[in-house]
């Protein structure tokens, strides 16, 4: 074997053998920074937290990317950007949705809610946020906005869930700190607060 190996040649070899490692290139393409020559981007309007927002969206741009990097709504977190962890969960027409796994262009007729949109105009926090504070549900907090949005989605559909129903509803949200017990305590408290 030739001991000299260029990175390109190596990658070609790996791809040819069908053992390609996960590439990150598509990830960044999805960040809306790709501007292929001759392609016309579209200025679209999306409804975020009750407001119509005009935003320049690339064809392959994810909703998480638009929210974070175009609209400055950094409450929506990216933990994995591959649909595994749920840190980017937002509500799309009341349904908890991984924002890293939907394209912004598919959101043109949807109602999107992020963690920034939960507070009342007078500053009162949503019951889920209050419940999470009272029970000290978050630890590091990075997964918390996603947990909040999944819980809000649950309580809209089922205002008085059992603990088991809450666990099932939040099962798509990973917490590496392992604060699941405290999040469930928070959801149950939120249901009491109403």
């Amino acid at each position: 074997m030739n001991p000299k190996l260029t990175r390109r040649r190596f990658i070609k070899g790996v791809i040819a053998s069908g053992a390609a490692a996960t590439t990150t290139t598509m990830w960044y393409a999805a960040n809306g920074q790709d501007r292929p020559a001759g392609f016309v981007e579209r200025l679209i309007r999306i409804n975020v937290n009750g407001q119509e927002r005009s935003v320049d969206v690339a064809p392959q741009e994810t909703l998480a990317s638009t929210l974070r990097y175009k609209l400055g709504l950094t409450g929506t977190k990216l933990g994995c950007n591959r649909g595994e962890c749920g840190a980017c969960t937002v509500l799309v027409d009341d349904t908890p949705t991984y924002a890293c796994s939907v394209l912004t262009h598919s959101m043109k007729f949807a109602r999107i809610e992020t963690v920034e949109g939960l507070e009342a105009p007078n500053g009162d926090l949503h019951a889920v946020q209050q419940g999470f504070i009272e029970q000290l549900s978050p630890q590091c907090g990075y997964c918390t906005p996603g947990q909040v949005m999944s819980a809000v989605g649950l309580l809209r559909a089922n205002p008085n869930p059992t603990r088991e129903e809450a666990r099932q509803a939040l099962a798509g949200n990973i917490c590496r700190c392992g604060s699941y017990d405290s999040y469930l305590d928070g959801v149950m408290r939120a249901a009491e607060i109403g």
Partner: protein
Amino acid sequence: MAYMHIGKDFVPPDVAGKVTGRIKYSEDYTREGMVYARLLTSPIPHAKVVSIDASEALAMEGVFGILTADDVYPDGEANSTGLKILTNEPTLVGEPILAVAAVDEKTAETAIAAITVTFERLPFVLDPVDSLEEGGPDAYNGGNTFVFREGFAQEKWTSDQVASFRAGNEPTAEPAAELSYGDLEAGFANSAFVYETPFTTAGYPHMSMEPRSAMAYWEDGKLYLHGTSQSLTALADGMAGIVGVPKEDLVFINAATGGGFGQRSRAGSIPSMAIPAKLSQKINRPVMMRCTREEEFTIGGARQGFQGWIKLGFKQDGTMAAADLWIVSDNGGKGGGGDAFSATNAISIVYQAEAVRFRGVSIGSNTAHRGAQRGPGENQIAAIVSPILDKAAEELGIDRLEIRKLNTPQTGDVGGINRQPFTSAYMPEALEQAATAFNWEERITRSRQRNGTKVTGIGIGQGYHNAGRSGMDGIIMMGPDGRLRVHNGVGNLGTYSYASTSRAAAEVLKMPWDRCDVITGRTDNHLPITSPQDGSNSIFTNTRTCFGAAQDMLAKMKEIAAADLGGDSADYDVSNERVHQIADDTVGMTFGEVAQRAMELGGKYTGEAELPEELAEWTQISVSRLAGSGFMGVYHDPRHSNNPPGFTVTCTEIELDTETGKIEILDMVSIAECGTVVHPQGLKNQLVGGGVWGIGMSVLERHLYDPQNGLPASTGYWQSKIPTYLDTPLKIDTGWVDLPDPENPVGARGIGEPSMGSVSAALNAAISDALDGHVFNATPVTTDMIVNHIAGISEEWVPLAQNNFRG
């Protein structure tokens, strides 16, 4: 003792920011003119960079610059283990080779694709025992192990020695390290039950939720670094050296960190933050480096896996007479930690073994960087020992709770290879409390009961970690508004200990919490040095410093009052935000007035004179910048003596499905023994969070590498099998002993790590119980292992291996 704040819940100041999404992590920041860095990482597990041709890339529009190992190490890379900022000698797939800064990430990626890196490919190894065998590949350039103060070395066994180890026998090779106490031979001779077995524990990644993104810019000669860290001042102190900037010129900004678990406690475990710092310096622009999940996996650290041999001897009465361990630790691609020795120490401490010997060697593999991960060593071995303890109990006719009680550590005992006394130890109380909460006597009657395909298993386990340090500094300030400002250098990774330790200062001054501000989040808030927030130490270490700084302010308050109002300092006390005479509390000053007076007096009252001589350099810089700006309490904490332990006990009931191998945790109770409880909700979070980690270690988490190319196959959450809501019990019950430790002014010790060990120990014991006492001698115990055992097609013990399906 009745406290105003200690032992009471409160709302930590950052929690509202977490539930609203307002609190900022490093990737949430932007800066005018900010550009983006991307990494070119090694596609092969062991190589040398022969040449880099970046000419095409650097000519591209929108590309601002490149950073290579030659830039960051102009005198050459250190010939040692440990993560590098960038390297020309990668020893694992994904190790950063160079970084490119460009107008956006896509442009940076495109530029990287145009860079030709020529690698000289070197032999690689994924399993340390493969490397141990004569003629086997070495993970590092210069050997397969690293000897402290000596450098790289080769550790080789004969093929026969390796084959014998793999066949389950005690290794016959010379260990790199050997430590012992007691008469081991006599211990085994006096034992009525001796159990000897090979064992493996898997390595696996930390997988913090927040990838280790960082953003940096330079302004007026200062470096502003937005990063991620589980320690604040301790990490910044080390990071200044890694970047090569004077400590006084580094502003480290880190309001919140998305998880650490041991891998973000010290600068050396996260040198990648220096990449945007150095690129920014080179191209004179703010640089953001966002990291992906895959990058967080490859440079984000992992637990050391063990391939070992253990022999435990028990006397007829159940006393652990002897413990003998031989452990080959997986040091991964960049060197590792001391997990194996800590594991042996933990057996000595938790089970009070009369004679103990540790032998071991740490061997590299071209896999993820290894380093401290939640209870490094103590927790791996807890899961291995617990089922063996149960086997001894069964053979000797002793109840499984009782055998733990009679071997338990308690106040006055010593523990560990160095036979160190405990500051205090209330493990008997913890065992009793757990047994009562779990209703052990009734539950144990359900052991091994069958219901269709389901079998009930009952388990009990204990966890331990050393839980306290000392020798750090404290600073508190007060202005004419009378508010108490506690400057706290503990990181914010979700334990809330930056806030809960600050309450020790409020306690001393009897300040209402809503009149206190915790000053933290960025180092230009002038913070004292503290120990890295690892090893479960923060509660013990920093209640001491905060308490001490408040004592200093209290003494100064009394001095000022006595000087202005008459009498002696001893005639004064504080209450209701006033310093006043004890005999007549109408004679006194408000805290605002005394702070105003302190500022008029200056000198020692405002940090301008008579400072503790032993203050760390970092603290001296902070004090010098605060000096004269307010009334200051400042303190250097002397060293404590003896070992402040953190202990936990867990009991669990599971149902094991003999058809699928799936286990369901029906009930789980964890009890903490960590001195006086400072913050109940925070303690509960550590108990349940550690418990989830224990479940992961027991039955789920492990590394997987492609043996042909050395590529990691478990870079994501899903492949790493991080526990989810559905892998964990619907409810984990918690409790605590809450007895004071004499070496801490509020009686407190730490607790972050042990509950992982006790849960894992209890869970593996419960699985063993459900399978009629079968001991797998491995973590994780996966469903396929269980099914194969039930089908009678498994081997007696799990074959030794690392970084694949078996290890």
